[in-house]
């Protein structure tokens, strides 16, 4: 497609510089419209669910400790290798792994969210907290206790009960149920599970009336 880009200008426009006046008129009109700037510290941006912010380990209400089972999947899938886990197994048969040390270097993290996605028990989460810059590096090497405290802080500022909180990366929207481990099959809105998928206008017309 050949585009038309020769600027056409009439002799009237050349003399009276109408194009400048048009531009000025536009900016003048904008003077009376509502400002769109968000005055940040006073005006908080609206954070969407699934925002990838500060790291936290979910506190299990049953035990009061983290849910991690020491499967090492997050540590292996991490592209920046910022997760470090040490664990041991108790002597008795059938006992679960005990986590000795769980560390995340927040300064190396690239916030891709892969760890949340591979975690089979939804133990790790990137919360919606985004203001946690510090002046010194060591305070951003999160230990297990700090990560649990991060979760507590996040829960305290949440406006709904903890049980209803589902991170979109714990159960990716549209992911088939058979691909997920047991704890990841959380109850989600029908739109997330793929039952009521958003489809285009042309498809809605062809679907049977009870589905559309």
């Amino acid at each position, binding site marked *: 497609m050949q585009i038309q880009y020769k600027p056409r200008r009439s002799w009237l426009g050349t003399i009276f510089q109408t194009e400048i006046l048009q531009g000025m008129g536009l900016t003048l009109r904008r003077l009376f419209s509502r400002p769109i700037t968000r005055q940040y510290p006073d005006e908080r941006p609206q954070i969407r669910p699934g925002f990838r912010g500060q790291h936290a380990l979910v506190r299990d209400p049953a035990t009061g400790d983290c849910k991690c089972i020491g499967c090492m999947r997050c540590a292996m899938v991490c592209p920046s290798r910022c997760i470090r886990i040490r664990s041991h197994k108790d002597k008795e048969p059938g006992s679960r792994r005990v986590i000795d040390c769980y560390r995340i270097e927040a300064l190396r993290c690239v916030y891709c969210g892969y760890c949340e996605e591979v975690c089979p028990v939804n133990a790790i989460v990137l919360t919606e907290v985004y203001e946690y810059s510090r002046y010194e590096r060591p305070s951003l090497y999160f230990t297990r206790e700090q990560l649990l405290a991060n979760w507590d802080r996040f829960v305290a500022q949440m406006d709904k009960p903890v049980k209803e909180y589902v991170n979109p990366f714990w159960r990716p929207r549209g992911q088939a149920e058979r691909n997920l481990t047991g704890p990841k099959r959380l109850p989600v809105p029908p*739109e*997330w599970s793929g039952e009521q998928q958003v489809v285009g206008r042309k498809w809605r017309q062809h679907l049977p009336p009870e589905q559309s």
Partner: protein
Amino acid sequence: MTRPITKSMDIPVADGEGERYSLRMGPQHPATHGVLRVDLELDGETIVECTPQVGYLHRGFEKLAENKTYAQALILTDRLDYIAAMANNVGYCVAVERLLDISVPLRAKYIRTIVAEMSRICSHLLWLATHALDIGAMTVFLYCFREREILLDLFEELCGARLTFSYPRIGGVRQDVTARFIDGLQRFLDIFPSKIEEYETLIDTNRIWLKRTVGIGKVSGEEALALGLTGACLRGSGVDYDVRKHQPYDAYALVDFEVPLGSDGDIYARYRCRMEELHQSARIIQQCIDQLPPGPIAGPDAPDLVMPNKVPARIEAGTNVYGTGLIKLVRDRNLYISGDVYVATEVPKGELGFYFISDGNNRPYRMHIRSPSFIHIGALAAIARGELIADLIANIGSLDVVLGESDR
């Protein structure tokens, strides 16, 4: 316009007469869009020789990728062209899919096309904003950021990030779209054409803008091909080449769009091409929203992060790849034992190519990135030669370079 240069300024003088002198522009110069240094040899105000120096933002992505699995290396592509990260992600995924012979469901293809075009609009808006700011039109800058903000909010709604998305996945996309996302996008598309009109009202026929752009930085079609220009820089010279049209990937073959072509090859022609591409991108997104089919978002043979069974677990996590699981996987999935593939996609800046060499491992043996910005910076020397130093700023802006992509 010659003046004596004192020794203390530490600027090397090329000629004893003071007629010709060298000047280093950048890397801190605000109009070089990042950290580009241009070594100039000037005769008065005319550029005699222009040598762009890149590498200030080198992070070694090609080497880093050799130590990461295919899924892990995806996050590196976010940081190539950070203005249009989604288009890079899509390009990477398309390349790996062709290498590993993975099929993508139709719904995922449509979603990818939507997000790639959204990032094209984002990139073109930022280009227009900064290019106009360089030339001196401050108002357009603010107006463009207003619309870009809507798109960034939509991206956040979709995948939780505003710049580094890592949203497409090899064999599909990570998450399904929500009704809120589609509604927001539809609202954006409804208002967007009127916003493009606003930008055009401000600068399209503005005589200062025309003085700075028309007839400057001229590249003929043959010259553009010889310099390796792609994208709007090539199409502004009248060469009809668009990867989306000529080697369609994802859902581009299923939607209807035009490739805008200029003829003069000057800065104004490139500007008009990109403005027309904004219209075309909006048109593609509208068609994709209308045609969005139901179905899964990731293929059954996609190397999932959410692991359905043990074999993908091995290939994803990057444990011992020579284990027995991989041999079967290689056979089943036609993973190339020693193969290579070059796949080009059309990102906002031009043609982004990924060249992979695979030795059958779960990580690339070699990943080469053919980034358009790097080649465009190389062309800057030929374009700016013989022009005024003030037009160099306009030339850099119109080539639309991002140093993150050029230096990799």
